[in-house]
């Protein structure tokens, strides 16, 4: 009985190694209760009619465990609704990262120019974004790969932000969701949803309360919920499973450890 109170340290380390390794090698969806923000984010995309145009502000720079899986899951979901997407970046390395999103979500298999256009870096933050909303082609005549966008099929009937059905912003700092909200979403009263890293999430609560963003993914946990709804178990789930399982195991171990410890103390006092 008293063994339970003093399980050797090496066994504990081994337990944690197993908990971390198994989900990494074979990711499995972790049941996490779905918060309402994630539910709204899912519903907004799920209710899109086929062929609707979506403008996305991406900021994925590395294959991390928050922005990157959010981007992949969102694009996969949009693909099932065969939405047409236009990606717009405030930073150069985000433009590189977006290439991975297209590749890993399978969007690059569709027709470039009609199903998706990658505009890449649009320098000039607020000023560029506001003129882009008025007239897309004149602000950014050339896309990320350098070919002109004026004669691309997608831009025949999409001239300004008015013709866009949905705006999605990924964020973790400024420039980010604040710029999109202030310049693109509020003035034109667009339908918009947002996906942010955990430390930036606190600022999103006011935007959601004011109704500027109808749905939101809050940090890695929000992405895990979204991945479990859409069924695309990706990096966020596999990287969240160890944290989730280790907390459960630790709680059990701590309760047992203290329980046995107090039981021994009382037994010693009586005996």
């Amino acid at each position, binding site marked *: 009985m008293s063994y339970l109170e003093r*399980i050797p*340290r090496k066994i*504990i380390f081994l337990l944690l190694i197993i908990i971390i390794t198994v989900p990494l090698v074979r990711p499995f969806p972790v049941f996490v209760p779905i918060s309402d923000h994630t539910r709204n984010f899912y519903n907004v995309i799920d209710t899109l009619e086929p062929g609707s145009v979506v403008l996305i502000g991406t900021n994925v720079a590395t294959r991390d465990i928050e922005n990157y899986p959010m981007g992949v899951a969102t694009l996969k979901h949009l693909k099932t609704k065969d939405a047409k997407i236009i990606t717009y970046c405030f930073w150069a390395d985000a433009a590189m990262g977006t290439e991975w999103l297209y590749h890993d979500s399978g969007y690059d298999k569709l027709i470039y120019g009609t199903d998706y256009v990658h505009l890449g870096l649009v320098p000039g933050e607020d000023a560029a974004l506001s003129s882009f909303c008025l007239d897309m082609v004149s602000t950014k005549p050339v896309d990320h790969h350098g070919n002109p966008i004026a004669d691309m099929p997608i831009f025949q009937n999409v001239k300004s932000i008015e013709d866009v059905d949905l705006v999605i912003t990924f964020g973790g700092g400024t420039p980010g969701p604040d710029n999109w909200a202030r310049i693109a979403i509020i003035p034109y009263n667009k339908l918009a949803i947002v996906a942010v890293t955990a430390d930036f999430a606190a600022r999103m609560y006011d935007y959601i309360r004011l109704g500027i963003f109808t749905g939101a993914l809050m940090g890695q946990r929000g992405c895990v919920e979204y991945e479990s709804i859409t069924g695309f178990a990706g990096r966020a789930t596999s990287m969240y499973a160890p944290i989730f399982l280790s907390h459960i195991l630790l*709680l059990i171990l701590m309760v047992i450890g*203290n329980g046995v410890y107090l039981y021994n103390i009382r037994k010693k006092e009586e005996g």
Partner: protein
Amino acid sequence: MSIVLRRYMPLVITAILGFFMILSYPIDNPAITGISADLGKWVMILASFGLGIGAINMFLVHGHAIARMEKGRWIPSIALLGSLILTTVLGLTTGIESDQYTSLYDLLVGAGRLTFTSLRGFFMFSAFYRAFRARTWEGGIMLGGTLLVMMYQVPIAELFYPPLNVFTKWLLDVPFAGGNRAITIVGGIAMIIMAIRMISGIDKTWMGRGE
């Protein structure tokens, strides 16, 4: 004369510089803020010379270990001095921005340092289980606080007993906020008193008495 030079001059310098830096903080005068910015640069120069002293100590300690061929120690000491000299020579010759230097730095420092950072997860995991014993009544309160926040951070309470999260949220927003603010104030007073002790010369341990 030598007593003044050996003992009192350093104390006077510390007091003047220390009190100047503190009292110059609220004063909005470009000349004064300029001086404190310059003094900040002085610290960077002196700290760089200080690092030289540390490096000399490293050479001596590991040089002796190699000279004495201590069992199981001299090979790592050669590795240490070798990587130190290699990094310094490459850094000075090719400069910090060169890609040979950055790739050498990432190779020798990147992986090791990141792995030591990740060891914290393992050690915290084992410490929470093995070190957390509610020996006293107060220890029980600490354990309770930890368990509650653990269930709040990861959606465990939401699965089994959601109202528990409401209670934890209240604990975090009210008593914890008060306790945290108290610790900040008390920590601030401790740091200021210790700084004043050193600046005003009440605590002269750093100077030593010696010859």
